[in-house]
């Protein structure tokens, strides 16, 4: 009986959380047009979320692509169609691995930075101070961070995919000896703009989800050192779960 009660309360708790996040999103969207006027603030956040994540994204993209090249080659070799490696690697990267892995790394690199920054602002009463000065902290602090993340994420995913394709090409063509013409021509024959669009839409939605969770957790963090730490952890965990869940939904929607 107690177990059911606990389950019920945790379920309602989760629903309340979801509702609060959605309300927060509406609030951000309502303020966004006015916040867009402060281009300098947004560009700074694009730098923080995007340019600073570039190294980890590029390195991971290279290695993911190289692994795809190796694994794909081993698998396709059994069927004597190594030339399809370009197609397999590109579709895998553009549609799935690019958006998903980038979003997971983005949550880990940029999401945590956002959450802890906002959490610390909350803990050190900077947000309250802004309210005292009649500056809306949502408009001045939260929305630029949110928009910066939303803008940076699809670009990062595209960079990840391109580097990954070259990683697969490096292993497949340079090391394993797949014909480079077949690698590219079969890829061009099989990959359509639809596949690219799927990747872009996915990465945009993941960008919104990751940034929203990060700013929400940070903004409503408990104003203690422990609370900031917990907000950061929750950002990564919630983002990861949501990314994978949304990925399933989006893939099903695009089929």
């Amino acid at each position: 009986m107690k177990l059911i009660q606990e389950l019920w309360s945790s379920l309602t708790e989760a629903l309340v959380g979801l509702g609060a996040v959605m309300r927060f999103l509406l609030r951000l969207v309502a303020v966004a047009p006015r916040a867009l006027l402060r281009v300098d603030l947004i560009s700074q956040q694009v730098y923080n979320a995007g340019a600073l994540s570039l190294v980890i994204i590029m390195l991971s993209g290279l290695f993911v692509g190289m692994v795809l090249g190796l694994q794909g080659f081993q698998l396709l070799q059994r069927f004597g169609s190594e030339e399809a490696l370009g197609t397999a690697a590109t579709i895998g990267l553009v549609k799935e691995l690019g958006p998903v892995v980038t979003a997971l790394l983005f949550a880990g690199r940029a999401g945590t930075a956002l959450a802890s920054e906002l959490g610390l602002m909350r803990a050190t009463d900077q947000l309250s101070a802004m309210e005292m000065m009649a500056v809306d902290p949502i408009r001045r602090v939260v929305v630029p961070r949110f928009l910066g993340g939303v803008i940076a994420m699809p670009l990062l995913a595209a960079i990840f995919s391109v580097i990954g394709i070259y990683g697969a090409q490096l292993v497949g063509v340079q090391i394993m000896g797949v014909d480079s013409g077949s690698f590219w021509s079969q890829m061009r024959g099989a990959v359509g703009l639809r596949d690219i669009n799927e990747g872009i839409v996915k990465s945009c939605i993941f960008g919104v989800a990751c940034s929203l969770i990060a700013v929400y957790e940070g903004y409503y963090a408990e104003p203690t050192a422990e609370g900031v730490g917990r907000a950061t952890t929750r950002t990564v965990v919630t983002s990861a779960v949501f990314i994978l869940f949304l990925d399933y939904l989006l893939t099903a929607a695009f089929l």
Partner: protein
Amino acid sequence: MRKSRTLDLGTGSFVLLGFAALFFLTTQTTSRGITLASPPHYDLTAKFDNIGDLKVGAPVSMSGVEMGRVTKITFDSKEYKAVVTLRIDARYNQIPTDSDAAIYTQGLLGGKFIGLTAGGADTYLKDKDEIDFTQSAFVLENLIGQVLANFAKSAGQSDSDKSKANAPAVAQPKATEKTK
């Protein structure tokens, strides 16, 4: 508070890189491609009855050595044949005029490529020349159809001649077609 110039530079380069990546994905990995400049080469054409799933960009090789690429596939509506343009590297400028071009398959399920076999003529193919002797793509469905037809034939004969019915149905290999 912020080092404006370096920050802007960083943001700008990042956004530029991101859009360059998007541009690459949409133009270089899909069929709506934009091809970049190529090294010295000359073009040959060849007409095939059937090219199967030969694609633009497929390799052209002789004795297994790659010599060029397929750059264009069009349809000749007078002869009802596929016209394939081959871009051959300028290094390989000594292909005899009576060479023949055949479409082969890479591996069991791989893509198609064009294999050239040298002829014995003293004159060499030049830019815009046509390869006269061609051999169509091997189409798996046709072969299966042939095997089935042969099988049905031998099964029909089995009433009169049972000893022949067990002989395996063998498909005849396609003979080289001469287009001229």
